[in-house]
Each structure stands twice: as C-alpha cells, then as structure tokens.
C-alpha cells in the first residue's frame, strides 16, 4: 500500500521491499494493475448534491442546555410568587381592633393609624370581660360535674340497698 500511494509523511516501503519489486515480475505486475485500477476508479467523478441541505434553523444551538418554554414559564411563575410573598411578608400588618381582624401586606412599610388601635383602657376592659366570662363558665361547669357525681352516688346507694333487701328476703 505504501508503494502504491507513496504518501508524504507516512513510512514508505523499506528498501528490501523495493528491491524485491524490482526483481519480481509478479509483484511488479500487481502493482501496475493496482495503479491501472486507480485510473479506472477515477472515471467516477464527483457530482453536486441533488438539492441543498435543509438547514435546521429552529433547533437549539449546540453546546447549550435546551430548556422547554413551558418549564421556563413555570419556574418564572414560582420565582415571582416567592418574591412577592417575601416582599409582602416582610411588611405584613396583622391587626385586630374594633373594626375586626385585618391582614394587609404592602411593598412599602406603612405607618399605623392611631385611631385604628385600642386604647389601653379598652384592652383592659376586654381582658376583664373575657376573664369574667371564663370564670363564670368554669363555675357552671363545676356545678354540673358535682350534680352528676351526686346523681351517680345516689344511684349506687339505691342499687346496693335493693340488693341487700333481696339478700335478706332470700335468707
């Protein structure tokens, strides 16, 4: 093959092979035939392509990580919600006043209105009332428990008395 192609930069056939070729008619003939064959093969010449290549214009660029659009939108929406939540909670205002319960968030912190808060006296009154209501409720509950215990005790005494009477009658 080296003798046939005699390429630059590749090892050519050694001197002993060349010496053999000079002395061997069969090898010389074969080499000549292969060279003739190369000329025959050269008859088949190049031709232009039938049509241009359809370029893949709408594909992702090579070497880049391809992310579907829906995925980008989903992550963008989640990121937006998280951001809004963080901003909102950082300035969240939770109120309970005479107007009821209120929860408000805003991007900017707002100064509270004095009129929207209970005064100290009002809070004390509310707390006293709540405690009073609670004590009344506890007292009523304890009375009901005592009534229940008395009732059960009376029932047990009644049952025991009857059993004793029945026992005496049998004897």
């Amino acid at each position, binding site marked *: 093959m080296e003798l046939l192609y005699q390429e630059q930069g590749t090892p050519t056939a050694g001197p002993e092979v060349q010496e053999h070729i000079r002395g061997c008619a069969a090898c010389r003939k074969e080499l000549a035939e292969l060279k003739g064959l190369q000329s025959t093969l050269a008859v088949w010449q190049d031709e232009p*392509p039938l049509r241009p290549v359809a370029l893949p214009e709408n594909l992702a660029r090579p*070497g880049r990580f391809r992310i579907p659009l829906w995925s980008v939108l989903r992550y963008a929406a989640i990121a937006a919600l998280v951001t809004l939540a963080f901003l909102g909670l950082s300035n969240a205002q939770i109120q309970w006043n005479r107007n009821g319960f209120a929860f408000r968030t805003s991007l900017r912190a707002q100064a509270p209105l004095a009129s929207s808060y209970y005064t100290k006296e009002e809070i004390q009154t509310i707390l006293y009332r709540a405690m009073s209501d609670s004590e009344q409720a506890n007292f009523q509950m304890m009375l009901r428990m005592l009534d229940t215990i008395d009732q059960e005790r009376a029932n047990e005494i009644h049952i025991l008395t009857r059993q004793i009477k029945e026992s005496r009658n049998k004897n």
Partner: protein
Amino acid sequence: MIRRFLEGDEHAFTEIVRKWESKVFNLAWRYMGNREDAQDVVQETFLSVFKSAKNLRDPDSFSTWLFRITLNHCRSRWRRHMPELSLDDPMAGREEGEDRVRESVAASSAPRDPVETRDLIRKALMGLSEEHRAAIILKEYLGLNLEEVARVMECPLSTAKSRLYHGLKGVQRNLSRIGVRS
C-alpha cells in the same frame, strides 16, 4: 469556521454545510450507489452534526468526525434497505437499466463512454463488503491518507491497509467479471 460554530455563530453552520455537503454527498453516493439515498444521508449527517457538535472535542479533526458520521448513516441505511447484496453478485444494484448494462457489457468489448464505465464501477463497488467499499471511497475518492482512513474507520492502520488492498482486489475481480479491464 468550526470554532465559530461551536461558539454559537449561526452563520458558521451554513458555511460548514456549503463547504462539506459535496464531499459528504459523493461519499454517500459511492457507498449507497444511489443518489436519492445519498441525498437523504447528507441531510441526516448534517442534522447529526448540528445536534452533536458539542461532542466534538478537537475542531481540527472535524473532517474525520464528519466522514465517520456519514459512514454511520450510510451503514444503517444500507443495512435497512439492501441486506441481500454480496460479492457473489457484483452487478446487483438499485438504479434502473442494470439488465441493459449487463447485456451491453456482455455483448460488446468496444470502448465505453464515461457514464457507462462509471456505472460499471458503481456495480463493482456495490459488490464489495461495506468495510472494503468504505476504505476505497475514503482513500481513492476523498483523497484521505492511510492514517486518516484508519481514523475514520476507527481501526488500526494495518487493518485499514488490509481493507484497502482487499477492496481494490475485489473491485478488480468484479470489474473483470463484467468485462472491464483496468
């Protein structure tokens, strides 16, 4: 050009296609023996190049890489469509008028025109095994040196030489069977 494409220059890919499509087409045509199949291989090859360019580690070896991809597409298409061809029937092929060519070859030993000779060469190549045919195309038609042939075919240099030698002998034998003297 290859580096620009790898760096994201969209126009570079167009330049690559325009520069290499003729070589890829002619490689595929001689492998498949059929222009339409060859054109399909060209399309598939450049699509693969576009998609897998990131796997090309050394831009200097682009041509080797490109021819390897082309041969892979040729092989898979060949095995899908033409598994029955063999050395026993060097006249086998897919293009029209083969019987007429066979008859004309048998009937006449007069000088042939280049188109007829080309068709006979095509048939002689089609009668080779895939590896022998690929080695001849890479060496004789694409003009690669022996080491490049070995790299494209992913085999040792000695194997490439052996495939080339036996391929040439096979072509010679097939041509003489159909009456062509080289």
